[in-house]
């Protein structure tokens, strides 16, 4: 994916040695139904490199302890590892300060946090929240909940037949009652890369802050939150080669400072009495209770792994495989791509004749191919394109053109079984 202003597609193609990258991922040696695993469900969750697996195990074997609490040696080690991970994430996003990085459970929780703590304070009856028609449910429902509570209105930017947001409609939706805009960096159902830098600037001209759901963006693009100038950026560790149960909310310090805490508990306070509680400084104000320490440390290792490969090199490699997939699948008779956006990253969604996506998924599974089938937690997108479900093949740094061929051959098998398609 080409994104932000970073040197794009730098480095020659040969520099990326996918065979060597594959060796970093133990699970890629597995077979499924006697066939080599072809893992094309990376948008659901990515596989983990050995360095992440070993880092998490190493933490439990040599450092396990609670953080920010003990004066003993292990607690010091664990605290340092946890805070080092925050630093790694800050550098990864090019955030200005460590305290702008809040660890949460995942993109879902990050968005809920902003909806509740920012929306909860800033939304009044008649105010508006703008999202797009290509959202994952996790960037719809939290806003619906807070809008219902406050009597605010959810406004939706339409998506055109290719799967791009309609920019004129977006501009019209930005009005005096708009309090926040929440957009996906990359659509998990269509693969659309949204022109978020431009859309953020548009909203800012009207004085409106923007949250970017980066669940599908951060794993595939160099993200520079200062260059984007986004107010919030959310992503999940597990889609970025890290452990499940951890995610990141980046927020501009000024905004986070002004927001009330999300949950109450230990670690998020300075002093507590029964009369009043003084909240801790950022980011701890938003990290109540014992966090997923091992997960955060694993995420730090994942970020380092990805940075080591070079996010631009990874993106360039993925773009090559993706371009090949689009070309190859377009040649499969009866196959229709759902979403043909101007800019695409990391995934293709399609239907095949009138064979239902689940049947395709089961047949491909017998070939060792893991794809996602269904509505991808984006039912409004399915409605928009008039399909109940799609098959989605999504790519990561370790996927190859040869795997795309296996997928295409698998589809021929579907055709044979279903008598022609």
């Amino acid at each position, binding site marked *: 994916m080409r994104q932000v202003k970073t040197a794009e597609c730098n480095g020659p193609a040969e520099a990326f040695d996918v065979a060597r990258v594959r060796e970093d991922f133990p699970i890629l040696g597995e077979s499924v139904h006697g066939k080599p695993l072809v893992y094309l469900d990376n948008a659901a969750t990515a596989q983990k490199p050995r360095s992440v697996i070993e880092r998490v195990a190493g933490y439990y074997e040599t450092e396990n302890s609670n953080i920010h609490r003990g004066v003993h040696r292990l607690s010091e080690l664990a605290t340092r590892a946890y805070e080092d991970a925050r630093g790694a994430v800050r550098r990864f996003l090019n955030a200005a300060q460590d305290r702008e990085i809040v660890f949460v459970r995942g993109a879902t929780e990050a968005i809920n946090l902003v909806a509740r703590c920012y929306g909860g304070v800033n939304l009044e009856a008649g105010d508006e929240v703008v999202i797009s028609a290509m959202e994952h449910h996790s960037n719809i429902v939290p806003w619906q909940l807070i809008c219902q509570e406050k009597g605010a209105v959810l406004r939706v930017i339409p998506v055109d037949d290719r799967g791009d947001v309609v920019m004129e409609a977006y501009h019209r939706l930005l009005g005096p009652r708009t309090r926040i805009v929440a957009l996906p960096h990359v659509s998990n159902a269509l693969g659309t890369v949204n022109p978020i830098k431009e859309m953020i600037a548009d909203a800012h001209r009207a004085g409106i802050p923007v949250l970017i759901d980066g669940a599908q963006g951060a794993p595939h693009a160099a993200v520079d939150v200062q260059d984007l100038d986004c107010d919030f950026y959310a992503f999940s560790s597990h889609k970025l080669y890290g452990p499940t149960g951890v995610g990141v909310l980046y927020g501009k310090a000024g905004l986070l400072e002004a927001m009330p805490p999300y949950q109450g508990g230990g670690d998020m306070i300075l002093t507590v009495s029964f009369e009043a509680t003084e909240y801790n400084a950022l980011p701890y104000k938003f990290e109540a209770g014992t966090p997923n320490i091992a997960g955060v440390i694993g995420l730090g290792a994942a970020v380092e792994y990805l940075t080591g490969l070079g996010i631009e090199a990874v993106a360039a490699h993925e773009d090559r495989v993706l371009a090949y997939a689009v070309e190859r699948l377009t040649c499969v008779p009866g196959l229709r791509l759902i979403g043909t956006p101007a800019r695409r990253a990391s995934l293709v969604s399609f239907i095949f004749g009138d064979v239902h996506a689940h*049947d395709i998924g089961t047949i491909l599974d017998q070939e060792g191919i893991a794809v996602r089938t269904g509505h991808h937690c984006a*039912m409004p997108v399915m409605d928009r394109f008039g399909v109940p479900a799609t098959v989605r093949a999504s790519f990561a740094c370790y996927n190859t053109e040869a795997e795309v061929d296996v997928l295409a051959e698998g589809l021929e098998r579907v055709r*044979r079984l279903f*008598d022609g398609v």
Partner: protein
Amino acid sequence: MSDLRDLYQELILDHNRKPRNFGPLAGANRSARGVNPLCGDKVAVHLHVEDDRVTGVSFEGTGCAISIASASVMTESLKEQSCDHARELFERFHQMVANDDGGNDGAGMGKLAAFAGVRDYPARVKCATLAWHTLRAALDGEDKAVSTE
């Protein structure tokens, strides 16, 4: 291909291509809707019940081959059966595909036995049972008359 043929038997592919008793049911007096929230499959089952017998049955909906074929074969197996027998078929069908209570191989269940292969595909059990759960809801929703066109 042998494994997959156990699942996608000719009978199933045929009922998926040409679902039987598909559409609204004139004179239906019981009806229920079912969805599988995981995959978005939707089905509606319409019944005409008289003297505790299923005298008319149809279904509508969208879904995968397993769910459409299961609904289609189900409707065929219900006609002129007593409501009690329909409930019993539900139990036996569920036992067969979900492999619960030790499972069963579908002996004596006629065409429904074609779905025995589903038990080897746990992710697909819900596809096969969606119509049946909806049927049971329709049977239980006594005298919930639906308007017919």
